[in-house]
């Protein structure tokens, strides 16, 4: 099954960009968590283990011909949703939210894998073409079900960040597969009118974060405080940064979740504008590269699949960095390949595996 030509067409550029960011991420984690207070395995070591597992998963995913995945798309999706339900019933509660499931000695977050399975399900659904005019609302019943079911379950955990990502990936795919403009406008109007309803659904702390973002003076000790500190950290890096291991802002505990959601502020502090431009530039390249893979795909399934992964990477990256720079409210959305977290790293690499898969088969069919 594995063709020799696969190695010739293997997307080394994509692989290179991913490895660059991931290894840079480990270096960054090493620096951020090096103030010597952690007990047990250091965080960067754990992240290296996750990276190894993730890379292996990525390669396996990449080498199985992606058309086989069409048969399993819905099964994978249903499994992921069932896992979400299990989380709500039996999940482990950490800091107020119920996001983890334990299998043996391993804890993982099913919500991370829901993203990939949603993309699979959407790709399978949009595999059949709508005809010349594009899809209209009446075609979109199932896709809406696909996205809202896990979204509601995830909001219950509660995990606003992941729910937002699911919605954004879904909307991006709608645009990509050509939904009629009239339908898109109707959707937009419906969406806006739903905002007050969603607002009522939000938890108090989520509301407070949004209000704080709109008016940071309201809560200088809480969410508003993070925004200021994060900005100070990034800004204080200046053009060339304070240097590797020389950041102070993050290490003194000025920032919460310094090694997960706010990892980019540490990078900005230590590596300055130069480092930021390099890393953000590689992200940009990676996303544009992914878009080319999507349009270069030989079939609809491959195109939508790879586009979904790219959309996921884009929204994660953009929202996270914008949040760290104080351009957006604080929502829990980590930065792909840089933030600490096993489930997220592995699910990102699985997505990359799908991209590689589509990329190396564009000449084969």
């Amino acid at each position, binding site marked *: 099954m594995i063709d020799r030509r696969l190695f010739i067409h293997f997307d080394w550029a994509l692989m290179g960009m991913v490895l660059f960011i991931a290894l840079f991420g480990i270096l960054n984690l090493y620096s951020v968590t090096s103030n010597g*207070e952690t007990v047990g395995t250091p965080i960067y070591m754990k992240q290296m283990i996750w990276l190894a597992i993730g890379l292996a998963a990525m390669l396996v995913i990449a080498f199985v011909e992606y*058309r*086989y995945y069409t048969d399993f798309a819905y099964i994978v999706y249903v499994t992921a949703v069932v896992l979400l339900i299990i989380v709500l019933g039996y999940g482990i509660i950490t*800091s*107020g939210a119920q996001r983890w499931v334990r299998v043996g000695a391993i804890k993982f977050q099913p919500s991370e894998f829901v993203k990939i399975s949603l993309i699979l399900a959407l790709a399978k659904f949009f*595999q059949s*073409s*709508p005809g*010349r005019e*594009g899809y209209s609302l009446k075609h979109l019943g199932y896709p809406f079900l696909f996205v809202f079911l896990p979204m509601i379950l995830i909001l219950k955990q509660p995990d606003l960040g992941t729910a937002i990502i699911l919605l954004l990936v879904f909307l991006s795919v709608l*645009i990509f597969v*050509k939904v009629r403009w009239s339908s898109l406008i109707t959707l937009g109007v419906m969406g806006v009118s739903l905002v007050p309803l969603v607002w009522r659904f939000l*938890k*108090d*702390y989520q509301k*407070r974060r949004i209000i704080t973002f709109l008016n940071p*003076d309201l*809560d*200088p*000790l*809480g969410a508003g*405080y993070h925004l*200021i500190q994060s*900005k*100070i950290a*990034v*800004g*204080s*890096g*200046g*053009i060339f940064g304070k240097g590797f291991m020389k950041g*102070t*802002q993050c290490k*003194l*505990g*000025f920032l919460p979740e310094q090694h997960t959601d706010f990892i980019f502020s540490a990078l*900005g*502090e230590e590596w*300055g*504008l130069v480092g*930021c*431009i390099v890393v*953000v530039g590689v*992200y*940009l390249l990676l*996303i*544009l590269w992914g*878009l*080319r893979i999507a*349009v270069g*795909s030989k*079939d*609809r399934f491959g*195109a939508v699949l790879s*586009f979904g992964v790219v959309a996921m990477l884009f929204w994660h990256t*953009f929202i996270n960095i*914008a949040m760290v*720079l104080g*351009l957006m409210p604080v929502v829990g959305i980590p930065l792909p390949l840089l933030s600490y977290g096993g489930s997220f790293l592995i699910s990102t690499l699985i997505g990359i595996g799908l991209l590689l898969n589509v990329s190396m088969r564009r000449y084969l*069919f």
Partner: protein
Amino acid sequence: MMELNTQRMEDFKERYRYLRYFVGAAFLILFVYLWYLQVIRGSDLRQLSENNRIRIREVVADRGMLLDRKGRILAHNRPSFEVFLVPEDIRENPETLGKVGELLNLPQEEIHEKMKGLKRRPAFRPIKLKSDIDWDKLVILESNRIHLPGVVVDVRPTRAYQYGQLASHLLGYIGEVDEHELKETKDRAYRMGSMIGKYGVEYEWEAHLKGVDGGRQIEVDALGREIKPLRSVESFPGNNVFLTIDYDLQKVAEEAYQNRNGALIAMDPRSGRILAMVSKPSFDPSAFARSITAEEWKALLEHPFHPLQNKGLQGQYPPGSVFKIVTAIAGLETGAITPETQMTCTGAIHYGNRDFRCWKEKGHGTIDLHRALAESCDTYFYQVGLKVGVDAIAHYASELGLGQKTGITLPHEKSGIVPSTSWKKKRFGVQWYSGETLSFAVGQGYLNTTPLQILTLISAVANGGKRFLPQVVEHVENIYGGKLKEYSPVETGRADISEKTLRVIQEALMAAVNEPRGTGGGAALKDVKVAGKTGTAQVIKMAANFKKGDMNRMPLKFRDHAWFAAYAPFEHPQIAVAVLVEHGGYGGAAAAPIAKKVFGKYFDIEASAPVKTEETIEEEVYD
């Protein structure tokens, strides 16, 4: 081979053109903003971070006050001076620790202990070292400030209870949040060191009382001295909670207990509003507010008479003869007896193979229901119990609110036990013996009730069978006096008991207090007619060598509990009271006089309250 669907791939290409620009534009925003932060504002921000001189000061909101129904303050806040350490500044000036320890007479180990316990906290956030320091220490600290980098003295509100231990169980207490509470209240504004209601009204109305904390971010110099504020948000005080209790009545009730233990609750039977709530022994709630010491805590926990328990709703006791009210109602309602049914008491009744004694050794002779209730004849009710049976009595006990929580908004209410044949089968797996019905009929045996349940029972008798939710808060106001919430009476149930039956009971209860041989004579008042029932709850089965009446010779912990449940005035009840005196002996002797004092005070207040209609005011003016 699988089908490849390659239809309309050109759609994707069309979208690709726009999507590229979209992604490009989005990243351009990021690049531009990075440049703005790191180049244009770079040097400013670097200065802020390099000096690492931003400190946080919390501005704790004043907690809402607790007031009585007439607006008299029961709990408020007073300023206290507290000493904090900022770990980040201490690190650079470690000698401070020694100096501050010396000034405050704190052993070094204790200081290190405090700093160690908070390792995961950000280093720039102050740690409380000592609260409520006195004036002399404050002066010393302030005048030595320059030598004490990293030490911050701050004024914060501390909870103060106006009348010490008065109504301590009702008011409750506050304390520092623990880790569990921090987790529970994640979406609210609590931090390590924040105070939170732990018990009583302080606990249940926490959300109203808390207020909104403010804060300041300030820039400090190398010695931790304030240079300039960067940002500040004012705190906002919590809401004031007006209780239903009356301070004067509460005070009289508390004092009536002298040094005895037990519980008293007074309630308006027309609304369920609690007028007084006493539990003895009481505790000093302010000890918790200024962080209680380990010894104090241990002493409270190990105290033989459980001062931390609100016995009015957490203590469960057999109701003794008070329960005869229920047995009588069951007898009348099922038709097993009529008010005229006569029975003979010779001082005891032989049933099975043992003697069930009446408290009156000589016996009551031949009497009807009225006299039996008024004189609390055990023998009469043994026989009624046998006629009615356990399950019918249990049914009416439940109708009157026993065996279930009243639903009062105070923590840890207990539900008591009303036994029945099915209950015993389930609990012990054995059947009910009819001998047990005799004990049950006079309120002993498995039966367990809280004073609050007994109060609900007597109130229902007084008001025609209605059960009201007992309420301790009348309304909540914000600091401007605007009413935020009002608690109106809630009827939670109505006992299915005929008016005729209730009338018979009411008259018998009146007789118990006001007729010559009634057991509740100790509660009789001159001007107001009181109706009530006494009770004596056995703590241990009467030992053979202790004849009844020899109570005073027994060790205190084996003596019976004394009960009295009553209401007044007889014609139009305004107040109902349940009194329990732990190990007090007979209800008539120990509990009824306490109720009398409370009734006396209540009607005294009512009488002296100026009824200022417009006419009377005019009279005053022209007099």
